[in-house]
């Protein structure tokens, strides 16, 4: 029986009224062991929902093109679906970036990589660049020099929106941070993926535009990509890291209660669990968060509105 198991088997831990006091009485090693033990319960599960989500989302988005071009679906109906598809395209790849579907050496590793590469096609971003820059974000969260997502920081919602629009202007720093990060970690060669994605993206836009389908291209890919990018940056980068002034393990990110609920905030209310244990699948982070909540409070984590719930 390891230390975590021993602590969990302590009757004091199963009594909610005593949990906090009992936790505070634990030694640092015992608390660490208990935290890892609880988190471990939510790992090592293949998130089949995310796999199905990746492929079904891609198929729906791809099918919008012939449906619209052959007049089976009006463009005004396809536009919101396309926004949803692009907004939903990132998270399955995020599961793959953390090898949650299958680690290296696992028989299903090919599926992990397939999901990673294919799911972000509507987002027009390359998996290898997203993965490597995201690992740097985890390693250096909120570090102004080393966190590639640091520029997302803003003092409030409106400041975020203003920054988000300005950052992606031709003279803005949006792409530079990722390019610089790839160079710093010695993986500049992978930027060829970004070049190819951008070539395909503008190639499709230009071809569609000069063959009389500019509005379709704008409403199926160009505008959805910009809208979804803002949405993804807001919920995946800004909201869970705001105010972003702490860099230590338990202060890099925060819990928050979203006014639009867990689904519309893309599960990011519990992002704190993801930063502590990136191998926990997105679908398990709410349960893991609530199981770890007393420990997170003792650790000094900012769990936002969740501190008032039992």
């Amino acid at each position, binding site marked *: 029986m390891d230390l975590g198991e021993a602590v969990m088997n302590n009757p004091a831990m199963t009594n909610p009224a005593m949990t906090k006091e009992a936790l505070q009485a634990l030694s640092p090693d015992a608390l660490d062991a208990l935290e890892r033990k609880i988190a471990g319960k939510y790992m090592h599960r293949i998130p089949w929902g995310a796999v199905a989500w990746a492929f079904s989302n891609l198929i729906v988005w791809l099918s919008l093109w012939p449906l619209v071009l052959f007049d089976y679906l009006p463009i005004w109906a396809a536009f919101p679906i396309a926004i949803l598809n692009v907004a939903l395209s990132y998270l399955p790849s995020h599961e793959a970036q953390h090898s949650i579907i299958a680690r290296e050496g696992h028989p299903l590793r090919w599926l992990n990589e397939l999901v990673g590469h294919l799911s972000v096609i509507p987002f027009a971003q390359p998996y290898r660049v997203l993965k490597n820059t995201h690992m740097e974000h985890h390693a250096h969260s909120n570090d102004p020099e080393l966190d590639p997502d640091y520029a997302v920081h803003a003092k409030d919602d409106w400041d975020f929106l203003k920054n988000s*629009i*300005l*950052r992606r*202007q*031709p*003279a*803005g*720093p949006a792409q530079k941070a990722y390019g610089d990060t790839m160079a710093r970690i010695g993986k500049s060669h992978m930027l060829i993926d970004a*070049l190819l994605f*951008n*070539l395909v993206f*503008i190639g499709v*836009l*230009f071809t569609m*535009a*000069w063959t*009389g389908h*500019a*509005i379709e*291209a*704008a409403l199926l890919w*160009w505008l959805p990509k910009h809208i979804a990018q803002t949405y993804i940056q807001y919920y995946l980068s800004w909201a869970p890291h705001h105010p972003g002034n702490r860099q230590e393990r338990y202060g890099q990110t925060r819990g928050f209660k979203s006014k639009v609920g867990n689904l519309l905030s893309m599960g990011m209310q519990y992002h704190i669990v993801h930063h502590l244990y990136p191998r926990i699948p997105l679908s398990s982070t709410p349960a893991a968060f609530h199981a770890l909540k007393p420990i997170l409070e003792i650790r000094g984590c900012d769990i936002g509105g969740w501190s008032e719930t039992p």
Partner: protein
Amino acid sequence: MQIFNFVKVLFSPIVFGLGFIGPLSAEIIAALAVPLTIGTPLHWGLLIGGLLGLMAQVRGSWIWVKPS
């Protein structure tokens, strides 16, 4: 180096303005049936796209406001 320069031009705002915003503006003008006394929707679209692209090229911003 030549390839690098080609890619730089291909991804430049002025090319995007003429290659995409131009025909897009033309389609919007035609769809809204905007009465034109001179030129075709494509002429006007290319003028709009070209000017927007030029502004973005020179100022580094499609919306006039420069990123800090």
